[in-house]
């Protein structure tokens, strides 16, 4: 059993770590090249379409949920409104074309699932972003660290505004060195928990949940959370439940999985306050349930 646990854990880490690395690289570029003043200037007026744009970025920026967390954390620390950043965090791993294409194949070309996942996932991400933006301010969600402007954990004697190429490369590598270690340790912890679940959750136990639409939907949301599957592959797993659970439960799994799971929760906890992460997780769970039920109504 321990060998199986080790294989599951390492496979999750090896799959996710390159994207976490990419995320920390992009995060470091944002840190070095985009000043907080510039962000403040961009977002000085509240515009409703910021949420729509944040929700659609994934179409042209196909990154999965592992890469998105470091980027989102950096954007919030730079001053992007928290609601817009959350919409970006939640929508990007769902509306990205690779995820939708894998959903298409997994569900044998059933467009209802592809459009339902993309469309309802987008609506859910925008709604949760707006709601979270209303109840949370940026200063209330970030952990109170002394490195609030940077939060990379290293000393800040350097000058971010230095123009030379060599200095910039030096700062990027310095940020990446710290941030990759910080984020990856939570990725490893998350993968450990997910691997324990994958190793010990029995299929008979899963099948025992039954066909109740609410119960099975809640179960599938929890399952998506603990299994921590990559959003580019989770549709194939969801498809195997198609004959066992109602469509609502399958859609709830497809929407909630890319938005939040164990490893993402732990990576978020590294930069954000516990209350904020718990509230976000509960909102995602509730909206995934609701959107699953709406999907059920639409296709029945």
């Amino acid at each position, binding site marked *: 059993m321990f060998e199986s646990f080790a294989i599951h854990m390492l496979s999750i880490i090896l799959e996710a770590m*390159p994207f976490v690395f990419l995320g920390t690289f992009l995060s470091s570029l944002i840190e070095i090249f985009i000043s907080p003043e510039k962000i403040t200037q961009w977002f000085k007026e509240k515009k409703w379409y910021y949420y729509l744009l944040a929700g659609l970025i994934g179409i042209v920026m196909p990154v999965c949920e592992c890469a998105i967390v470091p980027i989102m954390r950096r954007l919030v620390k730079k001053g992007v409104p928290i609601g817009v950043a959350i919409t970006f965090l939640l929508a990007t791993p769902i509306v990205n074309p690779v995820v939708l294409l894998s959903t298409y194949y997994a569900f044998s070309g059933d467009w209802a699932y592809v459009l339902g996942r993309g469309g309802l996932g987008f609506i859910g991400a925008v709604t949760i972003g707006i709601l979270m933006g209303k109840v949370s301010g940026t200063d209330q969600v970030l952990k109170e660290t002394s490195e609030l402007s940077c939060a990379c954990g290293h000393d800040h004697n350097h000058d971010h505004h230095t123009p030379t190429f060599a200095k910039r490369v030096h700062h990027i590598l310095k940020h990446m060195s710290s941030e990759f*270690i910080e984020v990856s*340790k939570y990725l490893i912890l998350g993968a450990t928990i997910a691997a324990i679940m994958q190793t010990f959750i029995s299929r008979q136990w899963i099948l025992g949940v039954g066909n109740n639409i609410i119960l099975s939907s809640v179960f599938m949301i929890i399952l998506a959370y603990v299994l921590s599957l990559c959003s580019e592959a989770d549709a194939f797993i969801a498809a195997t439940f198609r004959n066992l659970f109602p469509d609502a439960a399958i859609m709830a799994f497809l929407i909630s999985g890319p938005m939040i799971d164990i490893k993402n929760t732990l990576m978020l906890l590294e930069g954000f306050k516990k209350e904020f992460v718990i509230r976000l997780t509960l909102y995602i769970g509730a909206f995934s349930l609701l959107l699953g039920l709406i999907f059920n109504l639409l296709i029945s």
Partner: protein
Amino acid sequence: MKEILNAMIYTILTMLLALLILQDKLKNFLHPKMFGYVFFLVIGLLILAIYNWYTIYNSRKKLDMKNCQSLWPYMPFFFMMLLIILNPTNLSAQVVENKMVSTVRSEVKLEENTIDMAQDLNLMLSESEDNFIPWIERVSENPHAYVGERIVVNGFVYKEDGFEDDNLVVARLLVNCCVADSMLVGFFVETEEALSFQKDTWVQVEGIVGFEDVYFEHLEGYQETYVIKEGVIREITPYSQPYVYMN
């Protein structure tokens, strides 16, 4: 201390991942399509390792080697490295059973992008080759086109409660991205020899394919399923690992 630990983590991680690539062990964890990303990661980690040692070498600060409390945040990395060194290779049968099972059914297509339907339907694959994925791809795309064909597939025996005495599934673990998201995929087999073969035995099954209503206990009902009928089974040497990879 922190600088040294960072440099060590990046160096050891680079070496361990490079070894996984060089010894062709990544396939125990990932679909080959993901190998390129790990290669990219190794290059990135190598750059960070070199950068960290370079900054330590050039640092004017005296390194604090006494602060052992700072070791704790690195424990997840040590644990991960230990697991890589232990070199896990085999999933236990019990864990494999926990995976969801997918057999080819009349209304279910597992994937459909890899088939050239202009291919000769009577094309028979060499029995010495591993024919599992080509057959799964063919029948998943158009199950009815192959009814009555002779099929030869290799895999391990899978059985579950509720199977008749003459039923078994010849299965493989289909990996989409990584082993954590793998699922059991197989052909239902109807043969009088079924009782002679225990779960997890590696076998080659040869028979004629067709459809039949099969009772699945977990579905609490019958389902029209693709079945290898009049199956002739022989035990084969187990494969080094049970995975097949989705194209």
